[in-house]
């Protein structure tokens, strides 16, 4: 039986088979790698995209009213929601003039059948650490801005990212959601009562957070050690031989070149990825600005 399918695959051309959806489905389940390869040979992908084409990105800002800032990002099917809650805390002794940003990524069993209930798995933890590194490296928010009273009081921004639909390229979606939510965040005004030395919060009067940089990520997958595709879907992610995420800001400085192992990458390919990431940064920044402006206009 296996040989039979194999024979079919050898002569399989997706363009010719489009009129047989059932046959396509069979090939996809039986020989997923062959299925994808046959598309890549034709310089396209099974969902009709070019190799260097991102899925449609949609953004919804400020949909959660219980959060101080929120954003929902859809990258094709992949959906990530970010809610930011600000709380008050004492700064550390080592950094009395700095606040905290605590990002956490969660992959609940709701988003895909591959995740089990319980504490976050390795992928979620690695994603949390990656987002924390991106925040620190890009200086998207300067933690000094979160200081209220030096050595005594500061803000903690809990940035909770939750995946609602997992169809690959989690990191890109997370970075966009985080950035958009940070731009949407408004912190209440805090004054220190001089008599009691306790803080007083005016929840009505809020000011926007100063977002210094706009880091945006672009993720790539390497297929068969050589073919580079952007914005992989979960099926492609599980079949490819290496992942790469490049994060750039608006000054085209790199904030992260994250490649957790996998097959090697040549210098030219890396340069190609960086160039693509820079264009992606401009596209996304434009999108975020557009959505923010439309939200402001609606108010």
């Amino acid at each position, binding site marked *: 039986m296996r040989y039979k399918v194999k024979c079919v695959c050898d002569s399989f051309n997706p363009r010719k088979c489009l009129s047989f959806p059932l046959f396509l489905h069979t090939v996809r389940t039986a020989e997923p790698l062959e299925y994808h390869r046959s598309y890549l040979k034709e310089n396209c992908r099974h969902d009709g995209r070019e190799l260097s084409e991102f899925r449609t990105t949609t953004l919804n800002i400020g949909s*959660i009213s219980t959060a101080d800032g929120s954003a929902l990002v859809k990258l094709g099917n992949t959906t990530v929601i970010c*809610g930011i809650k600000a709380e008050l*805390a004492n700064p550390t002794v080592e950094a009395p003039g700095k606040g905290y940003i*605590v990002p956490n990524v969660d992959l609940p069993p*709701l988003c895909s059948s591959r995740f089990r209930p319980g504490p976050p798995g390795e992928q979620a933890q690695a994603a949390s650490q990656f987002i*924390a590194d991106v925040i620190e490296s890009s200086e998207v928010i300067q933690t000094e801005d979160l200081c209220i009273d030096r050595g005594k009081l500061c803000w903690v921004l809990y940035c909770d990212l939750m995946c609602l639909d997992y*169809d690959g390229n989690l990191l890109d979606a997370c970075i966009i959601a985080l950035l958009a939510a940070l731009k949407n965040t408004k912190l209440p005004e*805090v004054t220190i009562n001089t008599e009691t030395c306790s803080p007083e*919060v005016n*929840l009505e009067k809020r000011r926007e957070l100063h977002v210094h940089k706009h880091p945006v990520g672009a993720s790539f997958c390497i297929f068969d050690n050589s073919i580079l595709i952007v914005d992989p879907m979960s099926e492609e992610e599980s079949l490819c031989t290496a992942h790469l995420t490049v994060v750039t800001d608006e000054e085209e400085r790199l904030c992260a070149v994250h490649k957790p192992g996998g097959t090697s990458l040549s210098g030219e390919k890396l340069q190609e990825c960086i160039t693509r990431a820079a264009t992606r940064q401009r596209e996304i920044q434009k999108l975020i600005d557009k959505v923010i402006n439309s939200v402001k206009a609606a108010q």
Partner: protein
Amino acid sequence: MPTDTKRVRGPEVSQSPSLFSCKPAAVLPPHGPRADGRQRDQVDVRPVFVRCGLVSQAKGSAYIEAGNTKLMSCVYGPRETERKDETDMKCGRLTTDMRFAPFSCPERGSWIQGSQDKDLSLMLHESLQPAVCLHKYPRSQIEVNVMVLENSGSVLAHAVTCASLALADAGIEMYDLVLGCSIRQDGSSHVVDPTYMEENSCGSVSSENQGGLTVAFLPSLNQISGLQSDGEMTEETLTAGVRTCIEGCYKLYPVIQQALAKAVRRAAAPPSES
């Protein structure tokens, strides 16, 4: 307290800014129209927005929005039971998991599932189980996950509706849909589909007839599958409350039916000519 080593850690303690608010929190009036303009003592449920099949990875999914309450539910399965010792040869297993996103409530919640979540998961399970034809799925399990994205009251009631819709969207055989509705009794008056503020505030001084009631209802069979009440109510108030909840469910029914019909139509759409 053991530290959580699987998440990025923040400071040891932090407090919500609302604790230091210089203005006292607004108190809801115990009489007259409600804060959102709805009528007291009437079956005035919030308008709902319902959508099926949003999550590509799940077998079935549903999203419900009632006022500011936003919930999402996904159904996976039927698939092989994970734990072999729990495999039932005759009957399938239904598992429910209900969680609150950390940013869903006015006070930030923890990532770790609290006792409230577990309690709600159990009640959700009990409300849904009578409606699912589990005998049709021997040796398998059906997973229902509910995520509360924003909590603005009546979470359990909407979770029941949302989960049953997701089950239907997944094509799981059921006897009927399950709809949920809740009321809040406050002295002699009651509010239907209460908001978070109404749930957690106490308007009247008298301690009698204070409480909340959530009913899970099978509309076409005209049966109640789940009933949860807290507080203290007299027998008459409780029976009247149940009746009000059923009325509330019937108001919801056409919206849910429409959403389901729309999802079916989309799934069974004739293949396009391209």
